[in-house]
């Protein structure tokens, strides 16, 4: 399947190559460079390139290209998925997936790649197994190794690979048994010029950090599992149990891993009655809050009185937009300047503070410079990439942060037709915007009492305001 792998940095140097079958010459990468030149932007390099004898499938991660060489038909996603898994593993081992890290640990990288693929077919990709085979480098170990001459290669052979639960290694032992769950939700939204939500959904993940001895069997239940309508699971989760009881039951891998990822969308097409509710609630909400919000009621009966429906809606709004943006960006015809005025304020934030607010704007090419004054935070404008970044920080409702000023355009150039769209980043601690709540975590199979913790964070995902 996967014939060879080349790692290429941004300047086009091949700094690592690995072949699982016979050797493929580096010159095959020329086709890739050609495509890269054509694409102009790194993001636009087509992931699949066909060359006379091979196919190149590549991914772009952390300023590196992973280019794999394929000779025969194979599902492209199979390869892409694998390459990302390789990058994840590097990240996991070295803390970062960068050229320097890979070059420093070239032997470990090579050993890893050797274990991950056999003759081009994935062999061991679970991080728990790999860590048993090849120990990740730590400062302590490298000191010890240099003194004692012992090696990074595990001398015990991995048993996990042979068991029914390949993701967990055997003989885990901790003095403090802890299980932490981070519920992280990201709001993806497109908000149009007038401020109405074109599209909004919540992308959530539950990341777990499990440090439990032995073979614990966990089950995690939610207060409102019905919220999760589209979920993807870590292989350790017993699917049937979820189907029947809406409980996540699993024997966890050791360490950090992503337990589930889910999507809560504003586009609810569950059945007829919900859809009616949808209409009711949307109309109602639009009436009550002229500043609009797109919400979906999750009502059971469509015959609820309107007021009640409203009540329900407020309780159950699936996608609330926690910030609003007032903006006026204009460019004057036939003069080389324009006005820029953006104010950002909180909305529906459930009483929590919105922090870490950043606004990023890709200004049109004709913009030469910007002369702005922020009432809060600081801004930078990169005249080369034309990216304006405004680091706002916390939003306090008493004094709304704004950024005002003049935009200098190239003289003589026609005024840009399109106003740039604003990309907004923010973070709300201790809140899952979808309202998802973990009910309880039970542990079976082991006797000790673990320490349990759940943390909620809401962030902006791909949150875009069109202007």
């Amino acid at each position, binding site marked *: 399947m996967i014939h060879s792998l080349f790692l290429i940095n941004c300047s086009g140097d091949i700094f690592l190559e690995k072949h699982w079958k016979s050797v493929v010459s580096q010159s095959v990468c020329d086709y890739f460079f050609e495509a890269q030149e054509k694409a102009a932007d790194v993001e636009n390099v087509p992931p699949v390139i066909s060359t006379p004898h091979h196919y190149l499938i590549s991914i772009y991660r952390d300023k590196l290209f992973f280019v794999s060489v394929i000779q025969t*038909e194979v599902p492209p996603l199979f390869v892409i998925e694998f390459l990302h898994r390789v990058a994840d593993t590097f990240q996991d081992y070295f803390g970062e997936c960068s050229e320097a890290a890979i070059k420093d640990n070239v032997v470990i990288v090579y050993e890893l790649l050797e274990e991950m693929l056999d003759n081009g077919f994935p062999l061991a990709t679970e991080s728990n197994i790999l860590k048993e085979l090849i120990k990740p480098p730590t400062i302590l170990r490298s000191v010890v190794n240099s003194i004692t001459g012992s090696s990074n290669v595990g001398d015990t052979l991995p048993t996990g690979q042979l068991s029914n639960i390949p993701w967990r290694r055997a003989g885990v032992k901790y003095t403090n048994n802890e299980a932490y769950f981070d519920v992280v939700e990201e709001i993806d939204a497109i908000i149009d010029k007038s401020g109405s939500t074109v599209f909004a959904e919540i992308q959530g993940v539950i990341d777990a950090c499990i440090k439990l001895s032995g073979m614990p069997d966990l089950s995690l239940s939610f207060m409102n599992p019905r919220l999760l309508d589209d979920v993807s699971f870590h292989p350790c989760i017993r699917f*049937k149990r979820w189907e029947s009881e809406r409980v996540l*039951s699993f024997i966890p891998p050791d360490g950090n891993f992503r337990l589930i990822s889910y999507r809560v969308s504003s586009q609810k097409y569950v059945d007829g009655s919900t859809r009616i509710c949808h209409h009711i609630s949307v109309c109602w909400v639009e009436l009550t809050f002229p500043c609009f919000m797109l919400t979906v009621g999750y009502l059971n009966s469509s015959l609820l009185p309107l007021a009640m429906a409203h009540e329900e809606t407020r309780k159950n709004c699936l996608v609330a937009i926690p910030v609003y943006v007032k903006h006026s960006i204009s460019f004057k015809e036939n003069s080389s300047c324009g006005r820029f005025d953006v104010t950002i304020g909180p909305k529906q934030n459930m009483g929590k503070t919105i922090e870490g607010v950043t606004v990023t704007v890709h200004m049109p090419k004709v913009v030469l410079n910007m002369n702005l004054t922020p009432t809060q935070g600081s801004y930078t404008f990169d005249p080369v990439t034309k990216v304006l970044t405004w680091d706002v920080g916390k939003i306090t409702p008493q004094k709304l942060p704004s950024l005002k000023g003049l935009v200098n355009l190239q003289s003589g150039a026609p005024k840009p037709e399109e106003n740039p769209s604003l990309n907004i980043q923010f973070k709300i601690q201790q809140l899952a915007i979808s309202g998802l709540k973990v009910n309880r975590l039970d542990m079976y199979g082991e006797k000790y009492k673990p320490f349990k913790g759940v943390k909620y964070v809401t962030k902006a995902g791909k949150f875009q305001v069109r202007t």
Partner: protein
Amino acid sequence: MLDTNKDSLKLEAMKRIVAMIARGKNASDLFPAVVKNVACKNIEVKKLVYVYLVRYAEEQQDLALLSISTFQRGLKDPNQLIRASALRVLSSIRVPIIVPIMMLAIKEAASDMSPYVRKTAAHAIPKLYSLDSDQKDQLIEVIEKLLADKTTLVAGSVVMAFEEVCPERIDLIHKNYRKLCNLLIDVEEWGQVVIISMLTRYARTQFLSPTQNESLLEENPEKAFYGSEEDEAKGPGSEEAAAAALPTRKPYVMDPDHRLLLRNTKPLLQSRSAAVVMAVAQLYFHLAPKAEVGVIAKALVRLLRSHSEVQYVVLQNVATMSIKRRGMFEPYLKSFYIRSTDPTQIKILKLEVLTNLANETNIPTVLREFQTYIRSMDKDFVAATIQAIGRCATNIGRVRDTCLNGLVQLLSNRDELVVAESVVVIKKLLQMQPAQHGEIIKHLAKLTDNIQVPMARASILWLIGEYCEHVPRIAPDVLRKMAKSFTAEEDIVKLQVINLAAKLYLTNSKQTKLLTQYVLSLAKYDQNYDIRDRARFTRQLIVPSEQGGALSRHAKKLFLAPKPAPVLESSFKDRDHFQLGSLSHLLNAKATGYQELPDWPEEAPDPSVRNVEVPEWTKCSNREKRKEKEKPFYSDSEGESGPTESADSDPESESESDSKSSSESGSGESSSESDNEDQDEDEEKGRSSESEQSEEEGEKKKMKKRKKVPEGQREGSSSDEGSDSSSSSSESEMTSDTEEEQVEPASWRKKTPPSGKSAPAAKEISLLDLEDFTPPSVQPLSPPTVVSTSLAADLEGLTLTDSPLVPSLLSPVSGAGRQELLHRVAGEGLAVDYTFSRQPFSGDPHMVSVHIHFSNSSDTPIKGLHVGTPKLPAGISIQEFPEIESLSPGESTTAIMGINFCDSTQAANFQLCTQTRQFYVSIQPPVGELMAPVFMSENEFKKEQGKLTGMNEITEKLTLPDASRSDHVVVQKVTATANLGRVPCGTSDEYRFAGRTLTSGSLVLLTLDARPTGAAQLTVNSEKMVIGTMLVKDVVQALTQ
């Protein structure tokens, strides 16, 4: 450094060498020095040497051979992981000389104890194949062997080997198909992808198209495509309705195996791996009935949040799917909205999907969205958007004018690209209905003054020329203007000016004759030879002259021929002939090694090829099997009940696998399932007591039918009977005890004569039910010893009850009532029943003797009855009965057959052949028939029982109903359930029975401690725990009834 004795130095050296290899530098001259270290004790050094060896062995073949012996030693290592890694490296060395060694190693490893080593063997197969393709035949044998492997670890790798070595040998899959389906969910992700795509191909060759009947109905909407989309526009609600409606109107019935595949892959849509999700999505797209394909949309939309490469591939596939099945993605329309930060290639794909999804209802939203995109800074994307608008306009008639107006507005855009693109699109749109758009053409004509983009100018000129009849006044004026600026125009515009002039000359020669001549003479002296040529050619054509008369007569036809409107369609239109998700699909070209997705077969191939007996099978597969068996016989009656049935079986098998998955956690599922079964059982009892009143003969039939009722609601069809007993072939798994199991004892209890009872009673029943019992022809066979043991047991029971001992009881108790093997309808007049006679089989003491009764109810004699090609699970063997020459109409006969069930309750499947037909039948033994009674004293019994404690002891508490508290009833019920001998016992409340299993001869000891209150405790001690558990179940049921 490599020559030192110090491991740390060696390691350092090897690390440097590997770093060189990694950078792509040649390190081959170090080969001899490195190879020496292959036997090094240090694991890390060893591993790095392996890395080196695999990389350079091809170049230094002779030296590489030196290392082979080390690996050969490794292959014999007691540690499975060392064996595996030795095989891995050995097979990775690409040296043709060692092919025979590799072959040997692979063959050995394929039958290794450890699944991990077998997995490595599977990995080694394609390596060897690529090295020497002559080994194919031998490798296929190994693959065949490994395919039969039951561990999840091996499954993925062997299917990958299969795909690489012999993808055309689809016949190897038959036997393993169901196993693969059932294992699928537990296989690791990479294996899942390979298996799913292989199964897609397999299913395409083996099952009928689920849409074959729909296709006729669908053709119309499909053609209209964007026309009448009402039902799809209604969204999923209507889809569900359609799903409900479809089964009722189509006579097509999905093969149960086909259903199995769909059902088992569905949960994988929630996999974290994009590749698996895509694989399942393509499987559903290619295999599922239209109503069910919708489920994949949600999962695919989820993938759009992933890395941009994943998005790219998924969107390509979505684009193809959305052309065929638009309704599927419509609810997710907004998920395809474009963000300004998306890479251009993603934007364009999203646009493609949006365009495909646009229809009458959502077009306003889509167009509003497009309007935003048009103002984007990314000009390639804007151009694509304009084209998309054009496509929407051609497809949806209602918005054509709106689109056109919008596009016309775009003409005033400053960006050349935008204007040019709009003009081109407008040109195409106008071509579709020029008559109504005189206005726009006029507007365009005015634009010629402003627009500078040559392509756009050319397009306008072409339009005016083409439709000059609609704008008779403006056209000559435009030509005049163009003639004025002719010399300053671009070539492409000049050509169109000539064209326009020619067309006008032909239609309106009065006004334009001079202008045309002027233009042509200007063109004659142009710098570009193309233009000069065109001018000369045009002049010859249109200007009448003496010589060229022949052509000029046709000039009008040449120039003003009606031109077909261009069709704007998606570039993804015909991509779906490639398997979705494949590399070939992505490239829209066949990649090397691409396996065509075969078309659905016209006729379904024989489904029985997938029949295998594997003890691990869960109930659902049994069910499938049974259904499938019926199919050849009852395809018509099945037709009606099919859909409901498959729907019914769903939840059950779900809960079934549920219990399997939860068995690790020991959760309550299995108990809840057995609850269900208990209910069934109760129901059963109610029914059977009802039917007691009815006539005996009829009752039996009914009972059998009822057995099926809880599963299938198929009361009307008696068709189930033929395959009755095959159903519960897998009892090795305790939870999968099927209903039959519990029902069967109930049914024979009814019909078995109470053995310990007085003779008259027994006689009475046997008179009624004569043929149910040991037919006279076999009686001589019963050897005396065993009879005496059973007799002893009977005597025991009898003495206790003070009943007179009647000689007629000496004939062995027949174990079960008559079971139907083949119903006369199914057998075309041949009805076959069987009973377990409980006599030792004469040929082989390990065999259970089964009496088979044939009766011919047809009006022609049936000839040459014999057993053909038994398909038996491992260990089970059959002693066939001698061929029955002929069975004349109305006649009945009996034959004896011996079956060695190997102490399991797996069904023995075989074919019953007549001269003309073959029937698939199977015999399923109740657990009680797998043993023979043993006579032993109380002391012996206690001694043996003492040995069989702990795991081998199964205890169950029960309450005896009033009716069965008397001794003889208890004894009779126990002996009726199981072929055991009574052991004398001191206390009156205790009953003891003993027997040995037929095949292995393990003891089965049964103790029943009954209190006068009715509370009782049943204990079974047996080495065969499975048999013990099942026996307890059966006996408890028999007693509590």
